[in-house]
């Protein structure tokens, strides 16, 4: 399968630069997810790879050959669009076979291919239908089948699940994961949904403001975010941030803020001690807080529980700690009542520290 490499990719609309030099390399058979909030440039990047947007500067290499001057059809790629982009006047079979018919493949080959991919996505009974007579999920499958039928090495997805309802989205996500195991292709997937990114990706590329913030495996991004943006973007419910200062008390490094005073341990203490700036942001994921009445005060937060969101086995508590809002994930059986001030133990491995000025991780 072809490898893709982006070198200093820049996109400008008039005088406005929206992508500021993207460098990215996608390995063979890798499922790469570009994720970020709206307007971060992820879709633009994908559309430039597809050839639907011009490249303002920099270059795209496919198998080490520059392709940015080529038409989309010369780039050996297939794409699934957010609104499916089906041809409304063609039935499902015609939609799927359009690329093959344009390529003037023999009829028997086309028919065999259509049957094969329709079977793969479960559309065999709907081949004679027009897109207008299909449900959202079925249209999504047609879009997928059309891309599969092309047999190209690169598979692009532009937010393919965002028009589906929550239940169907979960189902399609699982099917996509299954499909990506079966077909050997380089997949690039754009989404704003970090759950899709976490579940599907071999590698996640987090983008923000036209820059790549961080790339790595889902686990790397979750456990070692390089800055506050990535930390807050990955994970649901999002990470809690508490402003504090580093205090050195005779060798013991503490992070002290309004309502908390936490002793840092091991490596964290060493990096914090070595760091010049004293103003930091303490980041703790809701899952790294544990309800424990007799916890060590140097290893815990004292929180005022304000709202409890029951979501089944787990409940999410919305609490206050001084001026900051803190979310905690607890077992729904925990004896927690609203309005109480409770002690939550902090998992010391789950403590993240960020420089408050440049928001980078320490």
């Amino acid at each position, binding site marked *: 399968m072809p490898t893709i490499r982006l070198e200093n990719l820049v996109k400008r609309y008039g005088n406005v630069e929206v992508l500021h030099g993207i460098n990215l390399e996608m390995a063979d058979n890798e499922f790469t997810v570009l994720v970020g909030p709206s307007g971060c440039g992820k879709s633009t990047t994908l559309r430039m790879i597809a050839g639907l947007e011009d490249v303002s500067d920099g270059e795209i290499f496919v198998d080490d050959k520059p392709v940015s001057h080529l038409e*989309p059809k010369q780039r050996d790629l297939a794409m699934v669009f957010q609104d499916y*982009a*089906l041809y409304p006047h063609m039935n499902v079979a015609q939609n799927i076979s*359009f690329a093959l018919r344009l390529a003037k493949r023999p009829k028997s080959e086309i028919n065999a291919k259509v049957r094969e991919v329709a079977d793969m996505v479960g559309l065999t009974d709907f081949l004679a239908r027009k897109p207008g007579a299909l449900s959202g999920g079925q249209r999504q499958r047609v879009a997928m089948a059309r891309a599969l039928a092309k047999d190209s090495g690169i598979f692009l997805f532009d937010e393919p699940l965002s028009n589906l309802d929550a239940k169907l989205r979960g189902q399609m996500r699982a099917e996509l994961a299954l499909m990506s195991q079966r077909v050997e292709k380089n997949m690039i997937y754009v989404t704003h949904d970090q759950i899709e990114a976490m579940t599907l990706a071999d590698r996640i590329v987090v983008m923000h403001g036209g820059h790549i913030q961080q790339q790595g495996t889902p686990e790397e991004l979750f456990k070692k975010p390089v800055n506050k943006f990535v930390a807050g973007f990955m994970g649901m419910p999002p990470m809690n941030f508490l402003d504090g200062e580093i205090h050195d008390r005779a060798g013991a490094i503490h992070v002290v803020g309004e309502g908390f005073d936490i002793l840092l341990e091991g490596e964290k203490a060493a990096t914090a001690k070595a760091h010049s700036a004293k103003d930091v942001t303490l980041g703790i994921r809701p899952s790294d807080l544990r309800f424990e009445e007799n916890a060590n005060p140097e290893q815990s937060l004292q929180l005022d529980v304000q709202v409890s969101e029951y979501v089944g086995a787990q409940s999410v508590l919305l609490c206050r700690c001084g001026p900051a809002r803190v979310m905690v994930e607890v077992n729904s059986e925990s004896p927690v009542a609203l309005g109480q001030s409770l002690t939550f133990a902090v998992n010391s491995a789950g403590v993240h520290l960020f420089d408050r000025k440049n928001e980078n991780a320490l």
Partner: protein
Amino acid sequence: MRTAMPNRLTPYMFMVPAVVIMAIALMYPLGYMIWGSFRDWNPSQTIGEAEFVGLKNYITLWNDPNFHESLGVTLRFAFFVVSIEMVIGVGLALLLDRDIRGISVLRTMFILPMMIAPVVVGLMWRYMYHPTVGTFNRFLESVGLPRVDWLGDHALMSVIIADIWQWTPFIFILALAALQSLPRSALEAARIDGATAWQQIVHIKLPLMMPVLIVTALLRLIDAFKVLEVILVMTEGGPGLSTEILALRISRTATEFRELGVAAAMSNYLLMLLLALTVAMFVFNRWQEARAARLTAAVQEET
């Protein structure tokens, strides 16, 4: 809580003003024309004085070679005008459906001919077609080509050209509107699927524009059957009957030959023809809606 049952007649009450206006403004003249078409009616008589002749006017026309000739001219005119205008109008729309600097000015200029009064269009083209001092022949002479007898030997063609000049913009703006409402992403998908610009037009753009194009063509067809002023000013139907389309013949039958009954009968023939076209348009729309509804119903049954 109970809501008052509205009187069943209430909705009809609201419709009364519109119905009254329709009756006075539309039905009365129309009925008058149909009534008159059964009479041997001279403009100096009131309709009551005119002799009732039954279907005589219709039968006379049915066997009148001049009427046949006129009908033939009308059909030829309408066919050529509409088909050429469709090709040029849609072609222009396909060419100009893009972001070029100053495109909006260009578009406005393209639709100017449509805004000019038909009489002015007729006069303008009559002068341009003039055998000795007209623009076209002067140009042909200056490049060493023989003159063309525009409004003589080639009168119908010349009239058709003038109509194309005036009405192509109508098709152009409607086709452009249809093009711009096409789903952009479907066209992008076609590009990725490997369609060339030409294949995109043939396989995606034209099929998706088709409903709009069919209605546009029918509207133009109905209009082309009724065109009068431009031809009246340019040729007065001549030479001979070569450009005497039906509308012109009706007007002359009424004013020059003073046969209001025959003119009315001729109008009714035209009306029937247009009615048939309108019904065809209506049936086409209904057929499309019904087809869409059937397909949707089929899906809902399954899910």
